[in-house]
């Protein structure tokens, strides 16, 4: 169908899932959870489920060493995963590394079309850390280098 009001507007060829409760959604019931489930960028839904779902065996865990391959600079970034922010399509991860004696933190949104791959280099020691957010690593570089150095105590 043509769109007469804007020649440059994009018309994404998206269809609602067949089991979508259309009548309820039109009333706004369960609309935001529905959008959180279905508004992933093209081809990203599976990747996002793998990384962030607590049911997924491949889910990310804080304290692991992660490499992100990106379209834009920095094309690759490796660091300790210090935070996971779960927000559906808007979920993000925070990586921390020390480069040229300067602490660098990068936040990545794996749903962004520029992010190509999120690879786990090494899982956290003993499988998991005791905190959900490892912000304390900013103030204790020794523990940080221990994680990065791979001394799985």
């Amino acid at each position: 169908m043509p769109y007469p009001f804007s020649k440059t507007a994009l018309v994404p060829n998206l269809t609602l899932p067949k089991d979508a409760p259309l009548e309820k959604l039109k009333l706004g019931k369960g609309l935001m959870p529905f959008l959180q489930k279905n508004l992933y960028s093209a081809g990203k839904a599976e990747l996002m489920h793998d990384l962030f779902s607590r049911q997924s065996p491949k889910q990310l865990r804080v304290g692991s060493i992660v490499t992100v391959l990106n379209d834009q600079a920095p094309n690759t970034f490796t660091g300790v995963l210090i935070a996971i922010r779960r927000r559906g399509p808007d979920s993000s991860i925070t990586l921390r590394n020390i480069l040229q004696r300067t602490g660098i933190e990068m936040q990545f949104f794996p749903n962004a079309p520029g992010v190509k791959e999120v690879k786990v280099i090494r899982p956290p020691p003993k499988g998991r850390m005791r905190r959900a957010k490892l912000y304390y690593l900013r103030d204790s570089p020794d523990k940080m280098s221990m994680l990065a150095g791979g001394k799985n105590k």
Partner: protein
Amino acid sequence: MFSLRVVCRHNSQNLTHLRLLSTTSTANANALTSNVGASSSKDRPEIPPSGDKWTPNSIRTGLIARKRGMIALWNDQGVRVPVTVLQLDNCQVTANVVTVRRDKSEYHAVQVAASDKPVKTTTKQMLGHFNKAGVPPKRIVKEFAVSADAHIPVGTELSAVHFVPGQFVDVIANSIGKGFQGGMKRWGFHGLAASHGVSVSHRSSGSTGQHQDPGRIFPGKKMAGRMGNERTTVQNLPVIRVDSELNLIFVKGAIPGVDDAHVLIRDAKKKMNCLSSHNQAKGLYEKVLPKGVDDLPFPAGTTELAKTLPPIIEAPSYRRSPFIPIE
């Protein structure tokens, strides 16, 4: 009584038959005219027929939507865009208003109502109003000032396609209530010092007046009190995406109010209405509408129009990609 206000309805089936006053409103109108001494029915303003093409001097009606929450989208350049999801909830036209001002100029408006509500909880007065318009009872009824050519047949159901992705809108809503707050939070006062002998009153507002002369506090003095839950307008937000299937409008950025609150959306006064007429008068025809927007649905985007358009329409980015370094 200096102005004469007549709420007229015109039948959505029969556009030519524009004035269809019920007996009661005629009686009211006569009462009003007898008050001001102008008794002839010729003075009664008529609802002008709506134009079928948008002009740079047209001002369209706004819509009533409900704020559903925020989410992020990525545009064609791969830039993250935080958006607020607004949903239309049975938004219908309930009346067209024409009022003649004291200086004989005319005020035109479209009355819009949204969110169906049970007949049981509707007052008799409002029920009569809705019955006259031929729409189910609604929770919220608001009026949008329009230009004379932008009247819409009563009963028309409005759709999210009213707005074109790439255009700008103003969003009006009540802000989130903060309760009773002190001067520091409510007005940005600095409070008293943290040390130097200050005790117990670090967040105090300080002095609120002088002495025996004037012996009172001047009205309007900024003090502690209820904060928030007041009408707030956010101007010039770009429309990113429109979904006519679920009647969603994705507007970039944050919007005042709690989730599920009613919000009013209209074409941006500054970045659309003012610029259109100004640039048209100056002959800058390519700047009459924002970049990428060729035309606007006129007099409004209805559900009938939505059926002829794609269900989801998205705005591309009209700016330079931030990921390409500047040479």
